[in-house]
């Protein structure tokens, strides 16, 4: 149920996100989810893409510094309280979230939450026990 996410280092300067994104487009790689975490100096661009291996290879070949990590995707109803239920479940199992980002209206009335956990397997077990829909890679990318 773990999903590969690729992260890349980008300086916090104008135009520094364009070239990696364009490279992926050129290889017909679709970006399904994206989040930019930034500091004053630099940013970390996190992406879930249609073909992570090809994306990582393409970017590395062009000299980008890439890291592949495993994240967990959760589907919730796109309505008030959707996120709160998931967080409450994780809290009750004492699972630590390293970071998260969200995509509202991913499908009709569904939102997607992407989590990075210190212990993803424990988190998946916890979420599934609470009846929360953890997405497999194929479901997220279809």
């Amino acid at each position, binding site marked *: 149920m773990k999903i590969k996410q690729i*992260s890349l*280092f980008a300086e916090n300067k104008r135009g*520094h996100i364009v070239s990696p994104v364009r490279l992926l487009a050129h290889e017909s790689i679709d970006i399904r989810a994206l989040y930019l975490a930034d500091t004053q*100096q*630099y940013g*970390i661009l*996190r992406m879930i893409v249609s073909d992570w291996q090809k994306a990582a290879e393409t970017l590395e070949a062009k000299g980008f*510094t890439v*890291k592949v990590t495993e994240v967990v995707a959760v589907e919730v109803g796109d309505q008030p309280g959707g996120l709160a239920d998931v967080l409450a479940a994780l809290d009750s199992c004492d699972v630590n979230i*390293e970071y998260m980002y969200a995509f509202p209206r991913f499908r009709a009335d569904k939102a997607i939450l992407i989590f990075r956990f210190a212990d993803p397997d424990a988190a998946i077990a916890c979420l599934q026990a609470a009846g929360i829909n953890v997405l497999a890679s194929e479901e997220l990318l279809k």
Partner: protein
Amino acid sequence: MDRVLETSAANCHPLSIPDYTPLADLRALQLKRLQIVVERSWNKVELFRKRMDERDLDPGDIRSLDDLAKLPFTQKSDLRDTYPFGLFASPMKDVVRLHASSGTTGKPIVVAYTQEDVNVWSSVLARCLAGCGLHHGDIIQVAYGYGLFTGGLGAHYGAEKLGATVVPASGGHADRQVMLMKDFGVTAMCCTPTYFLHLIERAGEMGVDLKQLAIRAGVFGAEPWTDSMRQYIEKASGIEAFDIYGLSEIIGPGVACECRRHQGLHVFEDRFYPEIVDPATGEPLPEGQEGELVLTTLSKQAMPMIRYRTRDITRILPGKCTCGRTLRRIDRIGRRSDDMLIIRGVNVFPSQVETALLDVEGTLPHYQIVLTRERGLDQIEVQVEITPQMFEDKIGAMQEVHARLQKALDRVLGIRAHVTLVEAHSIERSEGKAKRIIDRRTS
């Protein structure tokens, strides 16, 4: 300044009398002292004796000043390799002071002084100040750092020896420096030239006009500076600016200094014998030709230096100075033959940066040192290209990497260098090699 310019031993400051020693007497004194110091080093310093043996030389071979050229050189790496006390010629019980300055790696180089060495140091510094027209009665503020660095205590003892009133302000706290200058009626300042630029600016912001204060002279050293910087300083503050030269390995500040003619720096050559050599071959160059300055301490006890390679590029100026001093002059130093950078008076080597980066990451990332000058103060930035080993996709983890690099550099350099993480391959390479130093300081 209103005082009459000195022209001979008859009307000079009493401490300056040795500056006017007749040439024949000076050369005889130098030879006598050279023979004694060579003998002392040969007896007490193992490394020197070994090098003399390799050349089949002994102290008896020094029969004239020209014979100096036969002797082996000493260089900074010798101090590093024998760290901390390997070049001492006096037992520790006779050493009254230790100083240290940054070397090419994490370890500093250590220098030692007997009481007699401290006395000589004070006297040459006092001769520097006297040559700048300062006297008993002047109030001298010392804004060099006090501590292991030779600048602060060196200038302090020299100013006391002169009989001046010393304000030991040490470095930093620009507002307080300006306040002291104003409230104490300070007449002269000893600090690095860039720090004085900073004080000029700070005084302006505080509404203090330096031209209205009692200060009339500045004795600036510990880093190279230019004539255009001098013109700026003199115009902005109304003082007369003097260039002073020295290095810890020889004694600290006080090896050479300008007189009021400002035509080169007089070397106190009754104590420090200057030669100019070809930096590539080590061959002595004729007078007037530019090359590397090599210095021999003629009377140092705790740590004599025979033919020390300063890496500073200069020349011995031909002819006699109109001040009447018989001491030869060197040109102002503008560059070095190695890659050492002098930032706010602190020696920084690119290799130190490499050492720090290697310590943290285990591999050497591409890096670049960028020097800038902000508000008159030199700033150093170290740009480090991110490597896959360093890169983490969590901000917190990246901040830890950044903090680790910052800490390692602070420890090795002794001054703050701002670390910036940059993208891989973003530092320009020429012929495959990254350009290590970008100097954007304009004089």
